[in-house]
């Protein structure tokens, strides 16, 4: 299923396109977050149990002792999402790992009110169990949002950190390379993915690219190049 897009007109009038996160990304982020908050809450409760067991709690705390240990654990469990989303500007550790963040329909980071409202409606989204209402809503809405997002005017979008990082390197390559931008991007992409690709495939691609982009190279000489030589020739093309 192709990812949905959210088109937003920027403050300058130039449009931008954000990739909307689907139910899969949402579920992935939620499962990570659920594990984190459950483990932190359980760790706190375990600590309280150990302190109680060893009799290390001061006597004057005997009345409030259960509260001191039960309340933070409950707070962690129930306020994990709203607090972290506010503090991390629309992200949680789970969303960060899933490469997603919450934005308003205008593409901005939502305010505290919107994030709290979004989380309040988890009461409905989580009905009757396992976030079924939220999941169904996600599947049938154009922007893949759950009810909390509808009420708060928010959308979960995919972060594109790599593209942002590449702006500088794009500038550097364009300045020093004699290649046209698309070819330079192609070469750079191959070099970045060199270790991820199968060696034979990477070498074949490198030979093909060098054959097209470096007309001075003899095809017979190109066939004899070792992998390291191919990489350095590609690097030399980028300048």
């Amino acid at each position, binding site marked *: 299923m192709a990812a949905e897009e959210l088109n*937003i007109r920027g403050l300058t009038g130039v449009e931008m396109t954000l990739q909307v996160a689907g139910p899969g990304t949402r579920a992935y982020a939620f499962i990570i977050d659920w594990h984190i908050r459950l483990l932190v809450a359980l760790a706190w409760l375990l600590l309280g149990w150990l302190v109680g067991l060893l009799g290390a709690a001061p006597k004057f705390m005997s009345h409030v002792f*259960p509260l001191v240990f039960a*309340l933070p654990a409950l707070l962690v469990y129930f306020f994990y999402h709203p607090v972290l989303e506010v503090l991390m500007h629309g992200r949680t550790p789970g969303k960060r790992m899933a490469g997603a963040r919450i934005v308003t329909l205008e*593409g901005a980071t939502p305010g505290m009110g*919107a994030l709290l409202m979004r989380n309040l409606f988890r*009461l409905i989204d989580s009905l009757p169990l396992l976030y079924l209402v939220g999941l169904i809503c996600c599947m049938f809405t154009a922007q893949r949002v759950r009810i909390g997002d509808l009420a708060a*005017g928010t959308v979960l979008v995919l972060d594109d950190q790599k593209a942002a990082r590449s702006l500088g390197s794009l500038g550097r390559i364009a300045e020093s390379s004699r290649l046209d931008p698309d070819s330079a991007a192609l070469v750079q992409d191959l070099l970045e993915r060199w270790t991820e690709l199968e060696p034979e495939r990477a070498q074949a691609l490198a030979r093909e690219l060098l054959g097209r982009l470096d007309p001075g190279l003899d095809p017979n000489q190109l066939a004899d190049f070792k992998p390291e030589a191919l990489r350095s020739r590609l690097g030399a093309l980028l300048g």
Partner: protein
Amino acid sequence: MVERSDASSWVKSRAARWQDLEAEVNRAPARSRATPEEALRTLEAYRTLARDLASARELLPRSTATAALASAYSRLHVAVSRTPKFARSRWRTLFRDQIPAAARSVRSLALWIALLLALSALAGWWLISTYPELIGLIASEKMISGVEQGHVWTDQLLNVAPSSVLSAQIFSNNAVVSTGAFCAGLFFGLGTFYMISLNGLMLGGLLAFTHQYGLMHSLVRFILPHGPVELSVICLAGAAGTALGESLIRPSLPTRAQSLRACAERLGPLLVACILLLLGAGLLEGFVSPSSHYSIPVRLTIGLGYWMFMLLFLSGKLFTLASSASFAPRQSS
């Protein structure tokens, strides 16, 4: 048709500027505070990226350069359109203006919801008085046997849990009921009506049940300190939920989604007020209501006092009085 050489020379001409912009693109979204110079620099970078993105879309559609520029532009958009931090002045606005405005907007609905709660309580009373065997539907076995033995379940509360734990439990329960009454309004208001009616039925039924055994005064004695505010808050949350349902049935904006969003945004501050008031009610219910140290007049005074406080709080007068007191000219000696 754009020449390929034109595109290449344009990219080369912009390359140095893009390298400069990279630092700003990475830094600006993470910045929690910005000096005027930093803010102006971010705005300038945003404008530059917008221009370059528009040019790139024309010269190099579907290229890596266009994708990188679009991504950088959207990152800076987040920084540029960020709302101000929730500073002290915004808290003051919330308590002095937004909460009273939200409370005023649902005043008439709150009265209707209070009427629904009262009618449901009467229905509950009638139901349990007429069919006493139905009490099993709204009270646990333990509660029923306790009342049959001559004591109300609230008498033993402090033997079960310390006041602090009790307060936290009660607050959580009330908060869930109130926020539930609000959120259930999403089902075109029907969910809210159901929750309010159910709570009314239970309240009336329990009062009728204790009345049958001559223990109603004990239950009323227990309810007096926290009940007025707790019930009022539930009515307010119910009114907010009804307004939410109304925004879907009769949208005030072009689409139902927009209408729902606007309504939720308008009533959000009222929910904050409800939660804060329930925090106080929870403390009263944990520390004062189950205690045998407080006489009925004291309980009544606490209950009515807290209710008056609630009215001042919701009308905004509490903060108007506080700010006028702090700005009052000092008497010279």
